[in-house]
C-alpha cells in the first residue's frame, strides 16, 4: 500500500494569463478493503472537513421503497454498538462539530466539519456511525415517523413540492430516478428495521466507500488514523450501477397540474431531455444553458423578470447525474399571470433553438463560468471535499479541473450552437405546475393534450399508473 502524491507545487494557483485554477495536490490510495482514501491538506482552513461517501444513493433504493437510503443515512447517528443516540448527539455537540447525511441520485455523503484539534474524536464518531449502527427499534420508529411528517411538510412550499413531483412525472415509475429522492409518506410506511439493517450491510462496505479529509493536518498522521478507523470495514460487493436507458414515459408535451387551492401563485417547471454528468458535450451544454437560463442576465430571467416583471426569478438547471437527466426551466408567478409567464418562457426557448447564439454571448458565458468557478468550488475545505468525492464517484480525472479553463476556451461557436440545436428543443416538454387549479386549469390546457390533475392533499408524490391511462384532454375528476 502506498501513498502517491498527485499534482505539482502547492503554490501553483494562478497559472499564466488565463488564471487557470488548479486543484491542490492530494494523496489518494486504495485500502485493502477497497475503500478509497483521499487526503488534501489545506493549512489555512479554519475547520477540518471529513466525509465518508457511499456510492449508490437513491438509485439503489429498491422499487417501492424510495427513501430507504435516506432513512438508513439518518439512522447512522441513532445508536451504535458503543453509543446510544443521546450519547452520540452529546459528544458531537461537545466538540462543536456539524454532522450531516446527504443522499442524492447516486451517493450518500456522511460529512462532518470540526475544529482541527478534535480530529481524532471526530474520526471515531464518524467511523462509529458508518461502521457500527445498530438501528434500535424505537429509533427506527421515531425516524420513520419524523421522515413521514417531513415529507408532508414539503407540500407547504410550492417550490419544494414541484420538484418532488417532477421526478416521478418526468422519469416515469420504472426509471431509478422516477421516485421521490427521499421517499414520501407512502414509501416510508413500507419500511421496517430488517430492510434498513440489510441495506446498510450491503451498501456500507469497503468496495462502495470513499473517505475524504480536507483541512489543516499532516498527511501521514491523518492517513494512519483513517486507515485504522475504516480499514476494518468489510470489503463487501461493489454496488452495480443501473445502466442508462431512455425514460419510460410517453413523449411530451405532457402536463401535471397539482392543485393547491390556497396558493396565490403558480410554481412551474418545464423539463426536457438533457445529458449526464460525464457526457462529452457537457461543457458546451453547460455554457449554452448559462446563456439560456443559468445566470441573472440569462435570456429567461431577462425576459420574465427584468423586462416583464412577472416573477422574482426564472432559471434553467442542468440535472447532472450519473444517468441522463433533464434540463428544467423553473419559475413562479401570480396565479393570474400563469399562462402569460409560461408563454414567455416557451417563446424564449423556441427563439433560442431557432436563432444562433453570438460570439459575444458565448464569450460572456465563458468569462462568467470561469470567474465564478473558484469561489464556488475551490475555496473551502468543504467545497474541495465535495469536488474530490465527485471525481471519485464519476470516475473523473483531476485534469477536468486543472484544464477546465482551456476546455471552456476551446468550445467553438459552432459547437455551442450545435448543443443548442440538439438539446434546447420544444418537442418533448414536461410541465409540472403547482398552484390554484380552478383558476389556471383552462388557461394551461393548451400546453399539452396529455394533462393530469391531482390534489396536493393526495398522499405522496408518485403518480399511479392507472391515472396515466385516463389522462386525455379534459379533467378527470
Amino acid at each position: 500500500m502506498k501513498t502517491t502524491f498527485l499534482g505539482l507545487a502547492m503554490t501553483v494557483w494562478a497559472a499564466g494569463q488565463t488564471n487557470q485554477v488548479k486543484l491542490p495536490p492530494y494523496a489518494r490510495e486504495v485500502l485493502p478493503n477497497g475503500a478509497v482514501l483521499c487526503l488534501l491538506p489545506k493549512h489555512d482552513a479554519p475547520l477540518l472537513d471529513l466525509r465518508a461517501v457511499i456510492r449508490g444513493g437513491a438509485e439503489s433504493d429498491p422499487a417501492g421503497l424510495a427513501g430507504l437510503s435516506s432513512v438508513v443515512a439518518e439512522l447512522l447517528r441513532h445508536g451504535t454498538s458503543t453509543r446510544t443516540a443521546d450519547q452520540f448527539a452529546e459528544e458531537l455537540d461537545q466538540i462543536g462539530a456539524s454532522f450531516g447525511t446527504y443522499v442524492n441520485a447516486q451517493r450518500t455523503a456522511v460529512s462532518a466539519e470540526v475544529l482541527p484539534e478534535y480530529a481524532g474524536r471526530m474520526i471515531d464518531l464518524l467511523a462509529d456511525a458508518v461502521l457500527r449502527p445498530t438501528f434500535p427499534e424505537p429509533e427506527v420508529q421515531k425516524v420513520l415517523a419524523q421522515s413521514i411528517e417531513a415529507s408532508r411538510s414539503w407540500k407547504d412550499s410550492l417550490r419544494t413540492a414541484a420538484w418532488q413531483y417532477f421526478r416521478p412525472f418526468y422519469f416515469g415509475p420504472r426509471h431509478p430516478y422516477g421516485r421521490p429522492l427521499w421517499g414520501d409518506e407512502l414509501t416510508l410506511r413500507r419500511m421496517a428495521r430488517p430492510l434498513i439493517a440489510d441495506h446498510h450491510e450491503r451498501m456500507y462496505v469497503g468496495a462502495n466507500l470513499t473517505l475524504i479529509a480536507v483541512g489543516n493536518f499532516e498527511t501521514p498522521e491523518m492517513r494512519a488514523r483513517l486507515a485504522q478507523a475504516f480499514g476494518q470495514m468489510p470489503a463487501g460487493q461493489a454496488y452495480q450501477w443501473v445502466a442508462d436507458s431512455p425514460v419510460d414515459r410517453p413523449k411530451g408535451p405532457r402536463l401535471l397540474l397539482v392543485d393547491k387551492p390556497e396558493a396565490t401563485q403558480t410554481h412551474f417547471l418545464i423539463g426536457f431531455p438533457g445529458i449526464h454528468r460525464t457526457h462529452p458535450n457537457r461543457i458546451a451544454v453547460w455554457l449554452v444553458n448559462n446563456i439560456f437560463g443559468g445566470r441573472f442576465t440569462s435570456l429567461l430571467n431577462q425576459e420574465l423578470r427584468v423586462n416583464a416583471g412577472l416573477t422574482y426569478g426564472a432559471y434553467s438547471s442542468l440535472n447532472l447525474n450519473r444517468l441522463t437527466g433533464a434540463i428544467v426551466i423553473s419559475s413562479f408567478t401570480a396565479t393570474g399571470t400563469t399562462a402569460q409567464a409560461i408563454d414567455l418562457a416557451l417563446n424564449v426557448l423556441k427563439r433560442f433553438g431557432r436563432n444562433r447564439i453570438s460570439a459575444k454571448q458565448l464569450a460572456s458565458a465563458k468569462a462568467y463560468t470561469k470567474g465564478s468557478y473558484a469561489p464556488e468550488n475551490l475555496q473551502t475545505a468543504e467545497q474541495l471535499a465535495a469536488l474530490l468525492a465527485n471525481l471519485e464517484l464519476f470516475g473523473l480525472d483531476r485534469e477536468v479541473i486543472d484544464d477546465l479553463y482551456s476546455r471552456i476556451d476551446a468550445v467553438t461557436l459552432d459547437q455551442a450552437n450545435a448543443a443548442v440545436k440538439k438539446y434546447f428543443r420544444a418537442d418533448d416538454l414536461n410541465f409540472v405546475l403547482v398552484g390554484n387549479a380552478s383558476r389556471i386549469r383552462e388557461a394551461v390546457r393548451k400546453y399539452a393534450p396529455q394533462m393530469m390533475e391531482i390534489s396536493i392533499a393526495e398522499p405522496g408524490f408518485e403518480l399511479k399508473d392507472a391515472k396515466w391511462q385516463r389522462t386525455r384532454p379534459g379533467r378527470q375528476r
Partner: protein
Amino acid sequence: MRSLFHLFSISCLAVALAWAQPLTVTEHTLSNGMQVLVHEDHDIPNVALQFFFRVGSRNERPGITGISHFFEHMMFNGAKKYGPKQFDIVMEKNGGSNNAYTTQDVTVYTDWLPRSALELVMEMEADRIENLSFDPTMIESERGVVSSERRSSVENDNFELLLEQLYAAAYTAHPYRWPVIGWASDIQSWTLADLENHFRMGYSPSNCVAVAVGDVSDMEIMALARKYLEAIPSHDPPPPVVVREPEQLADRRVVVRRAAQVPLKLFAYHVPASDHVDYWPLQVMGTVLADGRSSRLYRRLVDRSKRALYVSYWQRLSLDPGLLIFSLELKGGVDLEQAERAFLEELDRLQSGGISTRDLKKAKNMLLTGHLRELRTNSGKADLLGQYEIFFGGFRELFSMPQKLERVTTADVRRVAKRYLQAANRTVATLIPEAQEHREAIP
C-alpha cells in the same frame, strides 16, 4: 484622508486555534467619509467586494414600508454611464456576479469577481452610488418583481408569513414592526419621488462601509477607491431613529389559521441591540436550549415527546433592541398547548437551575465553530467585517469575539435567562393548519 493600519490576530481562546494566522485588515476613510476595509487573501484569484449602507426598513415610515428593499432592486436598473441592465450584463460578461440584501438596519451590495474585473466593478459601483437614474418603465417592471418576491417569500411561505405577524405583534411603536419587504399595499404605492428621497437620505458615501477581501493589495484597492469613489459628494446621513419601543406590559399572542400540513410556533422575547454586553450570554443560552441534537428543546420536543420536527433559535443583528426568537415546527395533529407548556417548562428549568459548565463549554465550541464557518470564504470574511463594523461597535471586535465568548459564565447565562425570558416580555405566534380536504373551486 487618513489611513490607519491595524494588525490583529485571532487567538487566545482556550481551545488553541492552531490554524490561526494573523489576519491583517487595513482601514481607510476617504475624504468624503466613506470607510474602506481591506483584507488580502491570495488563496484563489478572486475578490469579494461589499458595500454596506446604514439604511434599512427602520428608516422608513408607514405608507412607504419596503422602500429600502425596493430601492436595493432599483440599484441594478441603470445609472448615468451604465444604463438599464448594464450593471449585470457587464458584470457577468467579465466573470463577476453579484447580489444584494436589505435588512431592518442595513442595505448591502455584494460583488464576487475575478481580480481582473476589479477596476471595472469599482467604476460601476461608483456610477450607481453617485448617479442612479430612475426609469419609470423600470420602476413599474421592478414593482412586479417585488410583488412576486413577496408572494413567493411571504404569502406562500407559512413560516415567513407567521414571522411577519410575530414582528407586527411584538412591536407597537418601533419600525421593526413592519416587514423589510413592505406591506403589499405599500409595494403598490411607492412613487418616483419616494425613491429619490430615499436615495438622498441613505446613500451618502459617509453612510457607507466598503469592504474588499481577496486577491488584491491594499494599495490597489485604495488607488481605485480614490479614483472612483472619493469624488462622490457627501451629505447628511439619515435622520436618527429616535423611537424607543416601550416596555411590553403583558404577554402577546397572535394566531394564523390557514391551509398547511404542519403547525408552527414562534416565541419571541425582546432583547437589547447586538452591541450589548448580553449578546454572547444570550447566544450561549439559545444554543443550550435550541441548537444541536443534544440541546434541551430538541431532546424534549423532538426526541422524547416527538411533538416537533425541528427546533431552532436566532437573533437578527440589530442596531436597536431586537428579538430573540425560538421556532418550533410541529407535527400535524399534535396538542399545541401541550407543546407550548413543554417549551415553557424548559425555559423555567433553565431560569431556576441554570446550566452546567459542560453545557457552557459545549455551547462555546458550537458558537466558535459556527463563527469559523463564516470565515471560510472571502465573502464570509467581508460579511463579518462589515457586520462587526456596523453592529458590534467596530470591525476590531471581530478579532476579540473568541475572548468575549470565552468570558461568558454560567452565572451570566442564568442572569440573562431570568432577565429576558419573562412572560410579560413574550410574544407567541401560532400557525394552525386548517382542514385539508380538497375544496372544489367556485367558478
